[in-house]
């Protein structure tokens, strides 16, 4: 895992502050621009296709980049399938993400918590 934030240091705190303020404004503005979109009108299209869950190898159903083997962890990385849409077609792409990334970490914690229950 590579940590950027530990290395990029020595930034003028004033600049940092300005930056944070601008970033916050950007986020807020983005959020607000979307809030008007009526949630009720929104159609959900979030079903995970069965073939993805089952690890189907039918290339016509999903375009999986390569890698039959879905080893869970390799060299500190976790292999995940990113589900995307190409037009109306669902497809997955595989990619490695660092095991210490917050996405993996939070999922793991969640799993652990569920096991404990």
């Amino acid at each position, binding site marked *: 895992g*590579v940590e*950027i*934030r530990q*290395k*990029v240091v*020595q*930034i003028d705190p004033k*600049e*940092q502050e*300005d*930056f*944070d303020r*601008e*970033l916050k*404004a*950007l*986020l807020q*503005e*983005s*959020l607000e*621009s*979307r*809030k*008007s*979109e*009526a*949630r009720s009108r*929104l159609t*959900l*299209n*979030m*079903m*995970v296709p069965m073939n*993805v*869950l089952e690890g189907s190898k039918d290339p016509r159903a999903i375009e999986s980049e390569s890698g039959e083997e*879905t080893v*869970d962890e390799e060299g500190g990385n*976790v*292999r*995940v*399938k*990113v*589900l*995307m*849409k190409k*037009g*109306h077609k669902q497809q*997955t*792409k595989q*990619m*490695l*993400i*660092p095991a210490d*990334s*917050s*996405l993996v970490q*939070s*999922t793991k914690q*969640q799993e652990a918590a569920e096991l404990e229950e």
Partner: protein
Amino acid sequence: GRRACGGGCRAQLRGVSWSWHRGGRVRAKHKEVCLHKDSPLGETILECYNCGCRNVFLLGFISAKSENVVVLLCREPCLNVNALKDMNWDLSQWCPLIDDRCFLSWLVKASSFYQIPSEQEQLRARQISAQQINKVEELWKTNPDAALEDLEKPGVDDEPQPVVLKYEDAYQYQNVFAPLIKLEADYDKMMKESQSKDNVTVRWDIGLNKKRVAYFVFPKEDNELRLVPGDELRLRYPGDSAHPTWQSVGHVIKLTAQEEVALELRASQGVPTELNVGFSVDFVWKSTSFDRMQGAMKTFAVDETSVSGYIYHHLLGHEVEHQIIRNTLPRRFGAPGLPELNASQVLAVKSVLQKPVSLIQGPPGTGKTVTSAAIVYHMAKQGQGQVLVCAPSNVAVDQLAEKISSTGLKVVRLCAKSREAVSSPVEHLTLHYQVRHLDTSDKSELHKLQQLKDEQGELSSSDEKKYKALKRATEREILQSADVICCTCVGAGDPRLSNFRFRQVLIDESTQSTEPECLIPLVLGVKQVVLVGDHCQLGPVIMCKKAARAGLAQSLFERLVILGVKPFRLQVQYRMHPCLSEFPSNCFYEGTLQNGVTVNERQSSGIDFPWPVPNRPMFFYVQMGQEEISASGTSYLNRTEAANVEKIVTTFLRSGVVPSQIGVITPYEGQRAYIVNYMSRNGSLRQQLYKEIEVASVDSFQGREKDYIILSCVRSNEHQGIGFLNDPRRLNVALTRARYGIVILGNPKVLSKQPLWNSLLTHYKEHECLVEGPLNNLKQSMVQFQKPKKIYN
């Protein structure tokens, strides 16, 4: 956002991540990001799996509860949809794409452009100046692969040769201006072609001419690009299992009040009118106007007859002997069908008629269109052939054509072919209308073919040939019989005028056109030229900073003024309440502006509005809210000011003012968009009322007027300065749009640092018009001004 992988996407992502690393500023011009083909996900535009939203500031990953499957989901609204909670997704662990000021490193890692910087690289990175970042970002526009090192390569960072006052000859002139026009053209092309939009929803219609018209919303973000009628767009359908891919080019024929675009398609067959969603729109860039400028400069250089000898040397800044045109002057200088001229207008007409080159300065509301029309009338009566009348904008040309036509002269308004379907207030004067409606028996053949073409959409090739020949002949006939031809400056380069010669040319709004643009109408044989404009208002818009810095933004009018040609100034203004014209007159026109309207004529009778000083319909409303960077990252907004703009608008409406009387103006696109949005959501009166109120940028309001103007200044910060507001010409334009009253919203603490604003604030304070507090209880403000920083020259 740019769609295709041309590397432009790379530049965008780089633009985002770069700024992030710098920790300096958010300069994310595009909220949309396309990953490079070498990134872990390959060439992919990041978007919400559920709704397709591409705003990276809103996107994050969620994972499925059981499997190693992740998707991108937007925070608003998708993450908050209740129904999702019951599904297989773990919403609580949503992980944003931009985390701790950085783009998720593993997502962009391993692509060639985005390497996690090594220690060494970072050391170097820290030494980059803001100026260098700007330069690299400018390089990305033309070379997406550019790196910091490229700044050091010879040639790349070279500033082009700047404009000068005097030129040896027309070749030197061309050598200076041609590269600047090229720079501007390249920039324009880059920018427009990057404006593709996907997921566009279309509704279909058929025009009176039986052509297909597609209506759709082309989201108007606060970016630089504005669509105008006549623009060419390509509408595409990417195709799906049931429908083939399809595309057609068309012209924008109008923009509705709801910001909907009407596109008249060239294709008549195979249009997928059964479909409505999933279309894409691209901008089709045209080089025509730039080609015509280059062509005019070439003609100026190689063709001795293009302009008279006197004008040739005059334009190049050479010493020329004073010349008088010996014409018998008319007994009266007014013209039939026009209002009576005032003394300064009469003098202007008289002096112009005797000089081969003259400049007329028309401050706001001084009747320069009427004066121009009178000049053209007398020129046409001198019998030296047809007069050519131009302006940079179509709106100005239309206004002038109408005024000139009312003197009884025969006027033809020549429109670009791409604008023939655009409705015009002077349609009866347009060439294409006259061709269709010329009623003589020998035109019956043309009419027959036209009718056939309208009905069938196309003609057989032999008929088409005949039709074109007949049409061309008729066009020439109509043009030849005109006293005056009106077109835009660029329109003067239309091939239909290539065999025409014009000895007398008048160019209105000439201070808003670049020199090469101004040259297009001149190189058709000019012997007498009149440039009308006002160099104390805003000049031409130049998008490419490099070209602007080199002087492309300076008009020919301005250069002639600097060379010592004294413009003739119109001095009586008929627009503003006398108390509104006082400051602009003193500040921009040496106090020479006289009022042609009285206080009584500008009394807002029956309007119950809380002006702090009765009979003085103006105030500066003190605002302390902070400015913010707008969502696009390239503009500013100010929420407090926007909220108060809405209150003022509502108060005006309640007091009996109608929406069409009110104009809200602001220097920033970000604020313009925000105010429109804010009013429609928070206005306490009927929605429709707010929709009818024009909210515009100061720049786009030049040449216009409203009874009441509300000006939102936006800038309010500790250290950043006031940007756009620094330009005195923008302030002049902003202050001179109102007829009956003006309200200015701004932060005096910040604005007073600039000398000109300082004197404006002092002016308002002295008249007890600097106020704060709630609108129904305005109190004089005691806010302290800052010392102005530099003396404005």
